Each structure stands twice: as structure tokens, then as C-alpha cells.
């Protein structure tokens, strides 16, 4: 175990801004990519369904 306390973990030996800035931005990027793709997929399916219903009626 490397850390004596939660605050030591957050401080990262004085490099907290750099370490957490790196990990946080990476996680946010991946989360946004996954959410964006999910929205895009639903949008495409919905557009197609709307178009399909319009054409069939």
C-alpha cells in the first residue's frame, strides 16, 4: 500500500494536479465517446424508423 491517508492519495506527492488531470480527462474522453456513440446509434435508428413509417403510410 502506497498511501497513508486519503489526502496523501489525492495530493500524489505534490503532483495531484498533473496525475489527476491526466486520469480524469482520459476517463471523461472515453465516457463522452461511449455516450456520443449511443446517442448517434439511437438517432440513426430513429431517423430510419421515422422515414420508414412515413414511406409506408
Amino acid at each position, binding site marked *: *500500500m*502506497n*498511501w497513508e491517508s486519503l489526502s496523501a*492519495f489525492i495530493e*500524489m*506527492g*505534490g*503532483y495531484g*494536479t*498533473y*496525475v489527476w*488531470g*491526466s*486520469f480524469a*480527462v*482520459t476517463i471523461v*474522453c*472515453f465516457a463522452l*465517446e*461511449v455516450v456520443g*456513440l*449511443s446517442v*448517434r*446509434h439511437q438517432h*440513426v*435508428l430513429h*431517423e*430510419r*424508423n421515422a*422515414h*420508414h413509417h412515413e414511406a409506408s403510410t
Partner: protein
Amino acid sequence: MSDIRWYKFSSPQTFYPLAGALAPWFGVAAALFAGYGLYISFFLAPTDFQQGEAYRIIFIHVPAAWMSMFLYLIMAGWAAIGLAWHTRLSSMMAVAIAPTGALMTFIALWTGALWGKPMWGAWWVWDARLTSELILLFLYLGFMFLHAAIDDPRRADRAAAVIAIVGAINVPIIYFSVKWWNTLHQGASVSLTRIPTMASTMLWGMLIMSIAFWLYAIAVVLIRVRCVILERERNADWVKQLGADA
């Protein structure tokens, strides 16, 4: 006989459900490896005697930088196959890889800046490694913007493939830049001396995180290629017949 089955999966119609079935498994595996990799990164890997805790950025910086180069070569490969054999799905794969490749390149540059500042005293320097990685980002963006700028998707595939193939020369330049030029960017060896197993713990963490990044990239590319297939084949009968939750 067996290669007939592979031809079958080169059709967007048969690949669409296959990609949908595979993506969640790659996603779950990516999450498990990332969880284990983060545990190694912060709890098993010891403090570096030179860089203190700042070196922990390596556990995402190196996998992201590796992926940025791997994905470019795979993208260029699919684009070349699509250009040579006019296989629609190959070009769709290239289009689906580009944004994830660009994201990995951005993460490599971002984490590099946040690592460079405390270690070198600069967010950015115009040295060979950093500059060639920045060019990689522009190549990804150039591929994406050129493809988006051409209305006919098959023409867009061919034009963008040329950028992808020509740009592939940049990947060995990035990789060997630290050998070919005198750069500020360090080589792979980082001295870790607190206990003898430190170097192997660090390598193990980097390996596990790299596998997590690979699995993540495969999962999102499979999901994105499904979107691309639907967008391009929206007028095909098989797309019209898909269920609302397909």
C-alpha cells in the same frame, strides 16, 4: 470451403449483428482490465525515486500513445483494402477507427503535457517525438474532415484512403524519433529502485492498461461501425426491416 464464411462477414448486412453481439463483451473485458490496471497503477506500483508520484501518468500515457500508432496503421490498412478491392465494409472500418485514433492521440498529447510540465518545466516543446505525434493528430483529423467534406461516400472513401496511406509513413517516424533525433522525450527505461520487483510491476501495469485500451478501442470501433453501416445503408431493405432496438 472455410473462406466462404469470411466473405460472408465482409458484407455490412451480416457484420452489423455480429459487431452488435461482440461489442458488449469487449466493453466488459475492457472495464475489468481497466479496473485491475488502475489498481496496479495506484496501489501496487511503488513511488519512483526520481519522479515521485508524477510518473503514474505513464499508465495511461504509454497505452494511449501505443494505441494512437496501432490504430493509425489498422485504419490505413482497412482504407488500403477498401481502395484496392472496393470492399465497402473495409472503408467503413477505416472511417469507424479514425475518431478513436484521434482521441487516443489527443490523450497521449494531453497526458504528455501534464507530465512534461513538472518534469521538464514545459507543457510543450517542439521536439521530434512531440511534433510527429501532433502531426499524427492532424492526419487523423484530415482523414475525418476530408471524408466528411465529400458527399458521395464511395468517393470520400477513396480520397480519404490516400491521406491514410501516405500518412502511415509518419508512424515509424514517431516510433523511432527518440533514436533518430536528440530529443527531450525519454526512452522507455525509467529507473525504479525501491524494491527489486518495481520495474516489473510498472511494466505489468502498463501491459494491463494497454490491453484495456485495446479492448476499449475494439468495443467503440464496433459500435461506431454499426452507426456508419446504418447511416450508409439506410435505404437498404435489410435496414428498413431491422427492429427499433436493433
